[in-house]
């Protein structure tokens, strides 16, 4: 816990939090990283294989093959979410299954399935981006800032 958050707590509360902390199992960072690396890597490898498949059997080149590849990966992830498998994979793999595009697809599909009972407009439509929305918002903001920095550097006669 940050020292700022700690300041708000009374002495008894601070003492208790240390007492409790000593009895909580810690997340195994190294093991989690290894699992995330393996699963995340496997998803990327699968993506590479799909990409090769499109280049070999269809009229795609390295650049244009990315679109059908991403679509295929999203399709697989959504299917796995629907069958209730992806959340089990996520519990084991952590960031490994959350960071690739499949994790993004899972966050949208799971929210859509969950809120189906509230109808298509307020339920599915309104809640689909409940988790993914912040990724899109901050992704766009970050892209804008990076583009701004790049433009300023070019204007100043840089690279």
């Amino acid at each position: 816990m940050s020292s700022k958050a700690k300041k708000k707590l009374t002495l008894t509360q601070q003492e208790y939090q240390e007492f409790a902390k000593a009895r909580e199992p810690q997340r195994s960072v190294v093991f989690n990283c290894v699992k995330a690396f393996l699963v995340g890597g496997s998803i990327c490898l699968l993506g590479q294989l799909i990409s090769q498949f499109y280049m070999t059997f269809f009229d795609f080149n390295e650049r244009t093959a990315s679109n059908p590849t991403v679509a295929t990966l999203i399709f697989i992830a959504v299917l796995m979410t629907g069958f209730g498998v992806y959340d089990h994979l996520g519990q084991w793999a952590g960031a490994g299954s959350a960071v690739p595009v499949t994790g993004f697809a899972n966050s949208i599909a799971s929210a859509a399935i969950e809120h189906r009972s509230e109808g298509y407009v307020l339920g599915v439509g309104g809640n689909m981006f409940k988790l993914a929305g912040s990724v899109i918002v901050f992704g766009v903001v970050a892209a804008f800032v990076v583009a701004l920095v790049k433009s300023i550097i070019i204007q100043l006669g840089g690279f």
Partner: protein
Amino acid sequence: MLRGHQSWEFANKPVILSTGVVGGPFEARGPLANDFDILHGDKWLGQDSFEKAEKKLLEQACEKAIEKAGLNKEDIQFFLAGDLMNQIITSSFAARTLGSPYLGLFGACSTSMEGLALGSMIINSMGANYIICGTASHNSSAEKQFRYPTEYGGQKPPTAQWTVTGAGVALLGKEGSGPRVTAATIGRVVDMGISDPFNMGAAMAPAAVDTLQAHFRDFERSPTDYDLIATGDLGKIGYQITKDLLAKHGIQMGDQYVDCGMLIYSEDQPVIAGASGAACSATVTYGHILNRMQRGELNKVLIVATGALLSPLSFQQKESIPCIAHGVVIENIPS
């Protein structure tokens, strides 16, 4: 009557005439499966939403309890229930079906014992002949409301717990055969500054400790006076903290101290730190523990149901989690 600072002693000793305990598919795979009256293989219970499934669980538990006691719906004077859903819709909608006069409660996962204590108080003071008190929770509806969508692949930390899908109710009466409610201790809200909703055990443990200490003080009793002391849903981590914290305060909890959240599922079920949810203490107490009392294996038990009084809004606003615990004493009294 009032005893000490925050406890009640029930001179007329209300009787638990019958109970209704319903569970879902995950509970059916656990070691206490035989203690449920009804187990469902389908987590939807044939309904089209998890919220409706949760309501159905509570309705079935009430029906079962009334049937087992050989009574009719019309005999029930009051229905005391609560749950975890926003505006306690599960209980209110089940009360609509039941048709009895109804008091809605909210004590999060401590609702089971809050209801039993209040119900006993009403019976004790001749306010009713028959009362049903109980609670329900559903894993998927709780996940949906408090955490992430059920199919979302986010990783849960080792302190996370699994919400029980089930409902447990008790039918209380003035006279009859069955275990009797003899005392209750009402808890205070305790907040030790824990704000992680994936660490309920550590958040609720101090509330359990506070109520247990108050109970032992008010009745001048010690843990050895009971055959079994069960906390509601602290899980492995909260259980250990409670035990160590009480030891620090000079109260040694022996082997008779258990946690309902550690009993309901087996080791190989992926529940991480244990079970939680309003139905956790309700199903284990009204099923497993009362069955053991009826078999004569236990004669005097203390159930301390723990609840985390947070809302999805409060933890997003970085508020810490206030917690509460209510204790009720159930005894076999030879007539």
